[in-house]
């Protein structure tokens, strides 16, 4: 039976000088679920102090997050090479300088962008002023001149014109020049915001500007002004894009350095988090934590290396010695292909240490339930394909794959069920290996077989449910035996008494059904079957009370309360088991709904011109999609509910503590 991995509590002492090396070796091992030594014995609290480190978890972590932030800015991730836990700690001051250098490069690029943005906004303001103040056709000067727009007409020296153009290129100014074929002077119009007039004076002076009344043949051309402004704006936008690219370059240009820094900071951060659990005296350091029993030898070797053979080590079994006040963490060890189902289990809770690992059972029960509710090979194929394609895509993008793995498994289960029921997209394309589900639901039953009507399908789901519930009860017995909880095993609702009631009740019920709902077993038989377990259940409250009295937590012997609790317990047991069993009828219900929906879509397709007509094909395709999505979702959710509520409630407490070692694989938190 698959259980949780055996754990051992490590308690060790070593010279304080070896503290750093020990933390790094333990990090490399990646197996320590740290426990503070001061938790082991309350008297140690005052005698020990936390182990001081130069590199704190917060300090290294803060810098590490900032480096990660740089990579996120460029939508990347650090290229993590094999971390070297044996290296020297990072000089945080130097690391901080590197981070600040990158940060300053980015800030400089942003500042440049902002300066360009201000210029762009000025140009935009000019553009608005020019557009608003000049008509499209006349382009005449002076008319409707804006309060903020300055328009100057004059002439400049032909020789100085190129220099003037160059000087004004970077300013929010529009220069319209009309060089004549001959002549030294060029008619020009300068448009700017009034605020910028003074700053233009030097450039105009150098170009030998002379104000002039322009001849009518020298119009101020609004469109040319706007074109000039747009050209400048485009230059600024290009410069802004280049500045934005500078942000990326500041990071991508130092990818290797930043990746290495990230890795070293991460190592230091994790080593510091391990040392955070250490306690020290003047010259020694003490530490403790849970390690899987299978790694005991490797741990001892690592500590010997780190401490030069001076480390003193003790190992304790769970619930004994120094570990008696602690709860051992739980490590689930399942093959990789069960990861999706392990996720379903841990989503509910963590099993208690020493109890059975529900994962393989959930894998079987969940897939069986899904298959029974979604039994169509064609639909299963689609779901499986979605799962496989999604899985490949998620792997490529480095994303989680559990959901797509589940899709793939569910698809496979549905394909197997579809083969058993002879159903491919609702059509009997192959002979049913078990019984023709669709035929039975449709009342045709053309092929006959072991199931002839929906009552037969309901019967299968009830029997399936009973098998699941009995399995749950048996797993509970196993757990109770392993954990030594004898009282619960004997008189608990899901112990021997409860299981006896359920199995006896099932036998009675089947007999009643087979008799045509007429005859129950004779009274003495009923009494013999149900009497003992009912009496056993009645022992539960007084036994619990006696246990509490032994620990001084209760007084007296309230018989009335016991009787009341017994009655309630009986009611809960009978009604609970009955309800749990009948709950599995939803398996039949969803399977029947699946078949019925397909039948309805076929009927509609027939009504619109036949299944092979254009309309018919459209209806069948959309119908299949709808059924896959809706029924698939329903079946998945209901299977989960049946596992979580009906199955787990028999044996799974979910009160365990997950094993979280501090390792380079994850954060260990």
């Amino acid at each position, binding site marked *: 039976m698959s259980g949780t991995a055996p754990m051992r509590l490590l308690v060790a002492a070593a010279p304080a000088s070896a503290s750093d090396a020990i933390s790094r070796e333990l990090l490399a091992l990646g197996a320590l679920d740290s426990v503070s030594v001061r938790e082991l014995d309350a008297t140690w609290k005052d005698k020990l102090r936390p182990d001081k480190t130069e590199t704190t978890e917060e300090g290294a972590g803060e810098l590490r997050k*900032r480096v990660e*932030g740089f990579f*996120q*800015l460029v939508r990347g991730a650090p290229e993590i090479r094999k971390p070297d836990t044996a290296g020297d700690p990072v000089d945080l001051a130097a690391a901080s300088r590197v981070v600040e250098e990158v*940060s300053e490069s*980015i*800030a400089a*690029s*942003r*500042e*440049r*962008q*902002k300066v360009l*943005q*201000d210029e762009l*906004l*000025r140009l*935009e*303001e*000019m553009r*608005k002023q020019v557009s*608003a103040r000049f008509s499209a056709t006349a382009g005449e000067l002076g008319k409707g001149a*804006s*309060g*903020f727009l300055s328009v100057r007409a004059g002439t400049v020296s032909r020789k100085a014109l190129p220099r003037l153009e160059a000087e004004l290129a970077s300013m*929010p100014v529009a220069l319209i020049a009309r060089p004549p074929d001959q002549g030294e002077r060029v008619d020009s119009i300068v448009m700017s*915001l009034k*605020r910028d007039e003074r700053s233009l004076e030097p450039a105009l002076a150098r170009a030998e500007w002379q104000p002039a009344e322009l001849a009518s043949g020298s119009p101020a051309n609004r469109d040319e002004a706007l074109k000039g402004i747009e050209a400048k704006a485009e230059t600024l936008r290009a410069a*802004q894009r280049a*500045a*934005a690219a500078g*942000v990326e370059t500041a990071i991508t240009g130092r990818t290797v350095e930043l990746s290495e820094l990230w890795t070293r900071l991460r190592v230091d951060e994790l080593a510091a988090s391990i040392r955070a659990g250490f306690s020290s005296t003047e010259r020694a350091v003490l530490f403790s934590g849970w390690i899987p029993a299978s790694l005991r030898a490797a741990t001892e070797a690592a500590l010997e290396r780190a401490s030069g053979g001076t480390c003193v080590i003790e190992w304790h079994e769970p619930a004994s010695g120094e570990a008696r006040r602690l709860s051992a963490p739980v490590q689930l060890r399942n093959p990789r292909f069960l990861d999706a189902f392990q996720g379903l289990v841990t989503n509910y809770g963590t099993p208690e240490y020493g109890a059975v690992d529900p994962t393989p059972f959930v894998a079987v029960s969940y897939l069986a339930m899904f298959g029974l509710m979604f039994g169509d090979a064609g639909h299963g194929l689609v779901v499986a394909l979605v799962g496989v394609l999604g899985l490949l895509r998620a792997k490529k993008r480095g994303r989680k794959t559990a959901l797509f793995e589940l899709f793939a498994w569910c698809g496979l289960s549905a394909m197997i069920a579809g083969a058993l029921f002879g159903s491919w997209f609702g059509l009997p394309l192959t002979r049913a290996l078990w019984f023709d589900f669709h035929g039975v639901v449709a009342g045709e039953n053309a092929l006959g077989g072991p199931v002839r009507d929906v009552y037969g399908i309901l019967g299968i789901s009830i029997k399936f449910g009973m098998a699941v519930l009995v399995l749950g009860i048996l797993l509970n017995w196993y757990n109770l035996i392993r954990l030594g909880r004898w009282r619960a095993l004997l008189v608990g609702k899901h112990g021997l008494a409860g299981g006896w009631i359920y199995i006896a009740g099932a036998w009675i019920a089947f007999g009643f059904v087979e008799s045509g709902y007429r005859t129950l077993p004779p009274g003495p038989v009923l009494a013999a079957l149900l009497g003992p377990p009912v009496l056993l259940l009645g022992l539960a409250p007084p036994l619990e009370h006696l246990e509490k009295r032994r620990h001084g937590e209760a007084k007296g012997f309230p018989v009335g309360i016991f009787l009341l609790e017994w009655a309630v317990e009986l009611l809960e047991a009978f009604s609970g088991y009955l309800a749990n069993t009948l709950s599995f009828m939803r398996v039949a219900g969803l399977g029947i709904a699946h078949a019925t929906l397909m039948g309805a879509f076929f009927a509609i397709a027939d009504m619109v011109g036949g299944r092979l007509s254009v309309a018919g094909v459209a209806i069948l395709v959309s119908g299949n999609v709808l059924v896959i999505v809706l029924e698939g979702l329903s079946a998945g959710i209901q299977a989960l509910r049946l596992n979580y509520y009906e199955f787990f409630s028999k044996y799974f407490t979910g009160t365990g503590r997950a094993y979280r070692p501090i390792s380079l694989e994850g954060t260990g938190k």
Partner: protein
Amino acid sequence: MPSRIGTYAFLAARLRTRIGKLLPDERLEEIAKAATVDEALLLLRGTRYEVLAAPWNASGDLRAVEAALRSMEIDMHAELRRDREEPLRSFIDALAQRLEAANLKDALRLWFDARFRGGDMSVRSGYLHRATVVHPVDLDAVLEAADAEALAAALAGTPYENVAAAEAGRAVAAGSLFELELALDRLHFKLLFDAMKALGPVDRKVAERQVGLEVDLTNLAWLVRFRAYGGMGAKEALARLIPWGAPLDAKAISAAWETGNLSEAVGGMLGDRGLQVLAGGGGNELSRLSLIERALRELGLVEARKLLSGDPFTVGVVLAYLRLEREEMARVRTGLGAARYGAGAARAREAS
């Protein structure tokens, strides 16, 4: 008038879902502690504020981000009023008018600065929200106005016309927009109370209580500011308050005005919460002002949250939603500002 359940059943569920998605305090604190705006915006990835990264990446200008944030807030009001029937629709418009007035105030400051102080409005005017919020305010006409008369003419056809006609000339003469801005704030509350009159009796009661509280808190904040910055007497200050709030003890205010302990008097009016906040403050009146304003803001938030535990089929859920969203956006804005200028978490919290 449509039934309250018909009006609010779906709306309340939708707004409560959104309230449930507000950013936790820890995230807002982290944003304020971020070393740079880029790092702060990374913290907003995966939230509805991640759209703020686009204007920042394009321009490197925090003002572009703030403009985007303002547009988000305006769009939020617009989305809320869509598909709403009267009188709720008009009430939401009246609430949104606060943003329109804030936008107009920004435009007026630019206009005043450019017209009368030779300032450059070309850069900041690019970030004004030009689309209609509630009324068709032509901000370009406002910015182009040659004088006070032209300003009033530019605002013709809007509720701001009369305010501009009454106050713009005085503002130019005084060289300060102070009175004009106060008048705009009073106008906002007037429009709000006018819109409330059309609400049903239950909604009106809830709205009057909540908006009345906001008036009270605004008045108290104004009093403290007038004393600290305004250089005016108690009588002048009291005359400028918004008229729809709870009556204030004029004698106590005047007495505290003379002694310079106004922040303590106001703290006393806030009850235990105000005095608690002041107990942790310094002796400087300005720092106590800052504490008072924080207390007032927190009171407003507490009252907004109380609305959520009341009758779900009232305008209270709309008021609570808008108040809480406003607070979150203000904190995001301030956090980004703190990241830009390296102010750190404590100052950012104080300033927001």
